[in-house]
């Protein structure tokens, strides 16, 4: 499959395959993910959606926001459903029941709950079997659809309804699970992280993920105004701050070659990112510094892998 070349927004098709009128929250950046995703995939695509915010907000019967074929089965099995679709198109093409020249793209769209936690097993199975499916994870770092409960993706000390910041327990006590490293350990052709505040980088990665022969995985940070407790107008700003503080790093790995795609010459302190969000409200200086230390360690690790300082020193 040839790769769509995207150097700027003008390279994106004008056609909107994600119809307006969906029920996502004001300022929700999952809508941004879906809109860009469908511009990159085009019409010749089947979407498999795990249970989650996007699924319930875009398909309230008898309406749908999807102008491409779309299927939802359950929470934990989107990768298995996609595996079945991939196998079906292959055998139906072989038997002459589907035109083999059509090269239909299969894309999974799932949130962090459906990927990090309940869906990890079926995801791993799909990757190991090598299905030609692009798995897009929109990560809002908690079970937002059920009302902000902790997931394996929730960052350290973050408030959720199941990890309150109290006198004894201080938000989530564990760090975010390194899901993309786990996926990369399957040695699939293409793995990338992206961020809605860097749409061209994100769209290029979606295009590369579709072009490889085999499974690909695109992990997108998706700021959530409702669950992260910020003003709906700040979604993109928070996405940018995630990169500038290195709470989030945009990278990709093509056939094992690791590359940071958004360099950060001068890094900001995590407090700039944390203080804009109600979910980190009430943290002590020490707790914020603890988060900073985790970020510093991760930056050091990434720079070591790349072999140069792609993420710079803390300056403000």
């Amino acid at each position, binding site marked *: 499959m040839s790769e769509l070349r995207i150097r700027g927004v003008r390279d994106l098709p004008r056609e909107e395959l994600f119809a307006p009128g969906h029920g996502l929250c004001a300022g929700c950046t999952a809508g941004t993910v879906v809109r860009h995703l469908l511009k990159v995939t085009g019409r010749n695509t089947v979407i498999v959606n795990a249970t989650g915010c996007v699924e319930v907000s875009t*398909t309230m019967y008898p309406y749908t926001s999807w102008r491409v074929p779309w299927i939802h*089965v359950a929470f934990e099995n989107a990768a298995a*459903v996609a595996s*079945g679709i991939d*196998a079906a198109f292959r055998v139906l093409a072989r038997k002459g029941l589907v035109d083999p020249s059509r090269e239909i793209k299969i894309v999974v769209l799932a949130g962090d709950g459906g990927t990090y936690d309940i869906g990890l097993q079926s995801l791993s199975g799909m990757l190991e079997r090598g299905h030609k499916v692009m798995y897009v994870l929109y990560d809002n770092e908690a079970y937002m659809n059920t009302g902000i409960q902790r997931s394996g993706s929730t960052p350290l000390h973050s408030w959720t309804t199941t990890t309150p910041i109290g006198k004894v327990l201080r938000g989530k006590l564990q760090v975010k699970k390194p899901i993309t490293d786990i996926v990369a350990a399957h040695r699939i052709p293409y793995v990338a992280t992206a961020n809605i505040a860097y749409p061209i980088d994100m769209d290029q990665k979606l295009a590369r993920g579709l072009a490889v022969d085999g499974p690909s995985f695109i992990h997108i940070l998706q700021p959530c105004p409702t669950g992260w407790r910020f003003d709906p107008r700040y979604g993109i700003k928070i996405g940018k701050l995630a990169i500038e503080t290195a709470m989030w790093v945009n990278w990709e790995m093509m056939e094992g070659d690791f590359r940071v795609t958004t360099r950060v010459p001068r890094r900001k302190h995590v407090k700039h990112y944390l203080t804009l969000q109600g979910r980190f409200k009430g943290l002590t200086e020490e707790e914020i510094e603890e988060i900073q230390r985790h970020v510093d360690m991760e930056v050091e690790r990434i720079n070591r892998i790349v072999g140069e300082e792609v993420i710079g020193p803390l300056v403000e």
Partner: protein
Amino acid sequence: METLESPIRQVRVVLNSNYAVAYAVRDVDVDVIATYPITPQTGVVEKLAEMIAEGELDAEMIHVESEHSALSAIIGASATGARVFTATASQGLEFMHEVLHIASGMRLPLVMSVATRAISAPINIWCDYSDLMNVRDSSWITFIASTAQEVYDTIIEAYMVAEDPRVLLPVIVAYDGFWMSHTYEPLYVVDDRSYVRSLVPRRDRVKLDPLKPVTMGSIVGPDWFYEIKYQQVEAMKEAYDIIRDRDRDVGKALGRWYEPVETYNIDDAEIAILTYGGIYGSLLESVDKLRAKGYRVGAIRLRLWRPFPVNELYKAVKGLSTLIVVDRAISYGASVAGPVALEVIATLHRMGAGLDVVNYVAGIGGRPITERDFEGMFELTLKLSRKARELGTLYWGVRGVSYE
């Protein structure tokens, strides 16, 4: 069955029921198979893997990492328009449970074989019907076969029924784990596979196609959900007549005739014993023995569990004074613990048939049920008289339990 009233050549082979499933799946030209190993079903997928590897069957086999994914994968494949199959048993069927309801709710014509087995704990790999009875309310059409021949024929029939546009419900074909899954029997299989394929023609249906986009599996609120589920009620009802038509088609095409309720020596019987699955053969022998002793006794076999054959059962029991239902699963804490007995009692009450129904539970966790056991249940029923009915359920063959 040496001479077949069949329009085509059939070959006599010796297979266990697991392999009989695989032969039928091959003969209907299935496209996608998703499998996960579990005893005693594993022989089905091993044989299918062999058939694919040898080029006898052109299908994609997805070696999934769980039964939950097996069913999910064939849902995806079926939604794409493929003809699909999976097989499981026991814990595997339980692990699928969530997805069973989704498959029928999405109205996909899946076919699955179940080599029935007890459910943990304690872990036990041997036969009973606890697994199958636990999925009773998942809206799958459910056949229970009693011979390897019937298994082969019923898998073919299952595709004829499931893919009928008036039905579009998934189908389970169940048979005894080990007693049938690992026991070899002679049976006939069709020589010319194109003949079987002509019995199950490819039909177009709504599917995932970028040229004609559809949204499948959307969220439905209280304003429409009930109507959508009611369509399943109607489809299940309608499926009954379609199954009867396909029974006749299978009879004409293959020379083997099936009824949802099969009877033996029932016409002059006062008492009959009803059961299901592979132990029916033993029941027939014990009926012969009891007849030789002068008892007017008959046998009834339930072949179709869902949709339940209300009228056929009613016809079969007419004239009986007592019906003994031998169940192979337990509904713990129920008024009558045998799931089939419970259904039979409800049916006969609804139809106004005033006969005594006595329920035995037997064979749990692979405990054998022989001719002698059926005779024993029969004799105990006579001895206990009315008390047998009032007990609700008699647990046959459990150490330390006595009803006398």
